């Protein structure tokens, strides 16, 4: 329990730090830390397949995509930087306060009664079987979406001159 609490606190602190820091690279690293901690929770809660997916895809692939996007675009130039910095600190200083307030307000929700209906079904124990037998439509949807992603990458990333409509 203490371990879970520690990990949760580190996760929220990493997210807040990532949002508040000035450099975009550190924000991407903050996102990677949050993904890694979510993956650790998945391991802890007996979902190894999803944990490996989350670790390899979100902590790995998505961070690489963000870093390459950040690398392909220049940051704003020097003289604008100083004027933006002062102003952004004013905007971001409310964030930790806002987070702690939301946490405290969430505490008030704790007392509400919940009734949970446990459905006793014969559940497949292997998520691969669940995906293949029970949720074929989702699997099909994933194939379609990967196809759409492929088309999107081809259509949006190529360097071309286009006229405006």
């Amino acid at each position, binding site marked *: 329990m203490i371990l879970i609490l520690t990990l949760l606190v580190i996760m929220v602190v990493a997210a807040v730090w990532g949002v508040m820091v000035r450099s975009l690279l550190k924000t991407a690293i903050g996102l990677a830390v949050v993904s890694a901690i979510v993956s650790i929770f998945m391991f802890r809660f007996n979902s190894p397949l999803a944990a490996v997916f989350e670790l390899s895809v979100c902590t790995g692939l998505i961070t690489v995509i963000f870093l390459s996007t950040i690398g392909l675009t220049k940051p704003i130039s020097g003289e604008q930087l100083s004027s933006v910095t002062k102003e952004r600190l004013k905007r971001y200083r409310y964030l930790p306060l806002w987070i702690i307030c939301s946490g405290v307000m969430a505490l008030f929700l704790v007392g509400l009664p*919940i009734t949970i209906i446990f459905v006793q079904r014969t559940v497949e124990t292997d998520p691969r079987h669940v995906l293949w037998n029970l949720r074929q439509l*989702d699997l*099909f949807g994933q194939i379609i*979406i990967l196809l759409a992603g492929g088309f999107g990458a081809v259509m949006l990333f190529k360097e071309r001159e*286009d006229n405006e409509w």
Partner: protein
Amino acid sequence: MPSLLILVPLLEIIFFNLFFGIQMTRIALWSAAALFVFQILAVLMHNYFFYNPGLDRINSFFTVHLGADRLALIMLFCIAAVCLVSLIIGRYTLTDKKQRFNFINVLIIAFIGMNGIAMTKDMFSLYVFLEITAISSFILIAFRRGRASLEGAFKYTVLSSVATIMMLTSIALLLFTSGDTSFPGLQSALANSKHNYVVIFSIAIFICGLFIKGGLMPFHGWLPDAYSSAPPAVSVLLAGIVTKVCGVYTLIRLVTGVFGFSPGLNALLLFVGLVSIITAALAALGQTDFKRMLAYSSISQVGYIILALGSGTGLGVIAAVFHLFNHSMFKSLLFVNSAAVGLQAGTTEMDDLGGLSSRMPVTSVTSIIGFLSASGIPPLSGFWSKLLIIIALWSAGQHFYALAAALASILTLAYLLIMQRKVFFGKLAPGLESVKEAGLGFSLVSIALALVTIMAGLFFPAVFVSVFEPVKQILLP
């Protein structure tokens, strides 16, 4: 049959891309058109295709989660019709072969996504197909990479993803309290636990997510930008069917099938509907760009659909579905006309246009039919659907809302009349002397859509009894 409607397009896409893609552009165009026409015919002969026990082996591929009842059949017809219209417009407005090929492919992907939304019976699969449709819409808006299109696409992406996250949260909480994600399972579980805080919260969050997707008033920020800045073929697709299926149809399906009507929900729907109608109509009065005005008009008409749904009766649901169908038809017609005007005259700013009825007679006449239907003038179909909405509201006891809806039609008539006068009537604006009528494809499509509107209005009693009244059966448990 339901499974075929999402499997065959996938096979088509794979087939197009296996060989050297670009040379197949013409084949791609004709086979995509054949696919859409096939779906229209399959819906019109639905007794043979959908309910035939002889086709059971094909049906059983995905039957766990796919099913097509009367409401889904109406949506499948609209989806195929508007996709066909968009394909034809795309063929005329996209001159680069490579762009046309990519457009056809992503259009078919959006078509698969929308078919899936119309036929699914499970919440999580609904989310998956919503995302397929949304992502293919982002690509379609942005693929010509004009500065304005990219801006519209970015705003749509961000807001649509926020809506998706709200819906996912709701699905997670509903999984928590009822252990199931399919529509029948959820309906039986929710029928017993109406006063559970978690359930009420998750229903509210889901409906807010659907309001964002459907472009209703507090959450409509992305809609005018996305509709007006998209390429013409994509504007037709978005306005005619994507927003309707993703937002409004899903709302009708879930409220009648899963969440159930309750006084709080009805009040929310009525209020949001009325606010959408009135504020969007007032905003449309002040627009100077043709497509942007049509976008605000779409928000207003969708408000009518939600208002009808909020009445909570069977007649209200039928009226909502009928208005959804009519809106697909006449809004696509108006956007096709705006595409024709834009292509021929080079601009869609209403202040620069004028007197086009002498140069573009077909476009002008079909546009008149479209706007008369939208304002609810008899005997066109728009009149019947608005009448049904007002009757449904009145008989459900919502007298104030019924009167407000009737009065708001005057606003609709006002802004559409302004549009018609500025663009088509009046003196011919300078610089437009050489404008010709748009090509044969545009004329055929606008005449076809206008004919559908006229016939659905003239033959209303027959159409109503045979097509729309069985929709009431979705309310039965």
